[in-house]
């Protein structure tokens, strides 16, 4: 069983998040099909101000908490309801495989009214450039070590999700990710969908909270995430090209890897340069408008011209006006 540790709450210190925002973010994260949530000391202390860590109501799904701290502070946070992750010197042990940092997991004995923690021995962080080489060989070497390893690839070479998926395919059981890939890490939501589609990991949570999570994170970091970011971008289910609109009307899976509702989104038809006759018909249906006897050829031409003049697509209001004017001209 692949276990995913979410590291979002270890990547937010620089944004100085408010306790209430962190509490909301954590409660949304806990609805995702993940196994553990890691947090920084600063985040933990703010969550205590906000009322503590949320109670785990679902006994069939216990999310472990992990505190990222130092060896010296273990005693200070002995009441933390979970396990600890501390930095350790890697030495030369893995230098032939990749540029890596090492961290170890520590579980204080006798603590916790939750199911037995299934912690790996170590977390290895780095591996940015590994996709350029023989990553399968590197994974094989890591997976035959005596210690169990949690894989934490960085995204400086834009391949972190792919490395994480390949790690799981090669037999790795422990992997980390952060929401929206914050902190330059594996993009959690992309990893969850990929492992589900690859049938590498059974599903046991919700992804339709992703839009709320996105808004929550954007509030904390003070900026919008890209509109077309994989899985969570707000425009990723917008469709304009006539061939695609036509295909989606026949079977959405023709041009979508999974239904938008799976990740809390809805499809939206956009009217623009590439919209053809069938796209116009589909858009009218989406808007619940009945406009019989339209001169489709002329309308599509006008649509193309208008969008090129504007150098972007038409808004719904602009489209309705165009169709109405076109119908009036046709009728007269």
């Amino acid at each position, binding site marked *: 069983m692949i276990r995913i540790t979410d590291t979002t709450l270890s990547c937010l210190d620089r944004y100085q998040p408010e306790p209430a925002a962190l509490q909301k973010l954590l409660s949304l994260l806990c609805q995702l099909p993940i196994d553990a949530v890691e947090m920084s000391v600063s985040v933990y202390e703010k969550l205590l101000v906000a009322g503590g860590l949320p109670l785990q109501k679902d006994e069939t799904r216990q999310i472990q908490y992990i505190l990222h701290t130092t060896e010296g502070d273990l005693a200070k946070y002995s009441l933390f309801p979970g396990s600890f992750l501390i930095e350790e010197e890697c030495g030369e042990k893995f230098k032939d495989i990749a540029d890596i940092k090492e961290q170890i997991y520590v579980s204080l004995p006798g603590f916790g009214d939750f199911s037995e923690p299934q912690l790996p021995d170590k977390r290895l962080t780095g591996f940015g450039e590994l996709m350029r080489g023989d990553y399968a060989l590197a994974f094989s070497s890591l997976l035959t070590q005596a210690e169990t390893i949690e894989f934490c690839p960085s995204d400086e070479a834009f391949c972190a999700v792919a490395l994480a*998926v390949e790690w799981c395919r090669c037999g790795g059981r422990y992997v980390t990710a952060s929401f929206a890939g914050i902190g330059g890490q594996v993009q959690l939501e992309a990893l969850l969908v990929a492992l589900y589609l690859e049938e590498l990991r059974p599903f046991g949570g919700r992804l339709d909270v992703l839009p709320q999570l996105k808004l929550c994170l954007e509030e904390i970091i003070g900026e919008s995430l890209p509109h077309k970011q994989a899985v969570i971008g707000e425009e990723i289910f917008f469709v304009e090209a006539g061939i695609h609109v036509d295909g989606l009307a026949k079977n959405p899976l023709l041009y979508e890897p999974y239904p938008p509702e799976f990740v809390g989104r809805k499809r939206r038809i956009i009217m623009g340069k590439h919209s053809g006759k069938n796209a116009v018909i589909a858009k009218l249906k989406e808007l619940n408008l009945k406009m019989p006897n339209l001169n489709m050829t002329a309308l599509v031409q006008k649509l193309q011209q208008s969008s090129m003049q504007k150098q972007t697509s038409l808004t719904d209001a602009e489209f309705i006006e165009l169709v109405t004017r076109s119908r009036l001209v046709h009728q007269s």
Partner: protein
Amino acid sequence: MIHIVDTTLRDGEQSPGLAFTRKVKVEIAKLLDSTQVYQIEAGVPALGKVEKEAISEIKASCKHALVSAWNRANIADIAHSFDCRPDIIHISIPVSKMHIYEKLQRNEGWLKQQLTNCVALACDKGYKVTVGFEDASRADMGFIIELTQILQNLTVKRIRFADTVGILTPYKTAEMVKHLLDFTDINIEFHAHNDLGMAVANSLAAAKAGAQFVDTTLAGIGERTGNCDFARFIEVTNGMYRTKTTTDKAKEVTLAAENFFNV
């Protein structure tokens, strides 16, 4: 060597909300040409007069890149392409059962005949033809190999292997590319989409497995989550393959082009 086929002006422009004028298309093409990409997929002639004029002007403006026009597999589309006289005519055909039966509402027999007719039409006019296998990542490899062998007999030298809905992983990409190369000696052009955040990684995997052409778009624009990001692919493959495009140049051109993308 890896050859970049940039499709900013075709697949990239299909990104909802983008509508390039002729002037903007030519400017973007010149930016791409300055990076010395191998090929620029300049547009879809079947869209009409303005698009055809843009493609013709792009062809006249490019000093380095080959210029190609995209077509559905029908005679009317290809006739429009003849009006622009591109260097390459690209013919796209869906190859998965879902696309053939549910979208086209046809069968494999019809598809093979239609493809043969369209390719023959373009080749007989003296054009270099490449063929795009739409939804190849969800198609039967046996059928893809069969089609490829038909195309090789028609003197087509390159096929585009499209992961149309972006569901491939690096391992599956490599396996499919290697499988096709085990049975044919076609040149493979890999076309990724970024639905699972793996467009760059899959394109790299395809290149490592033997694909010699990779499709990109500037800033990764395209349908849904977009295509393989041009500058990122150049950066991540730095030093691995001979290429005339540098990372700095790719980033500079991306920045200049982003003014046109409503980002």
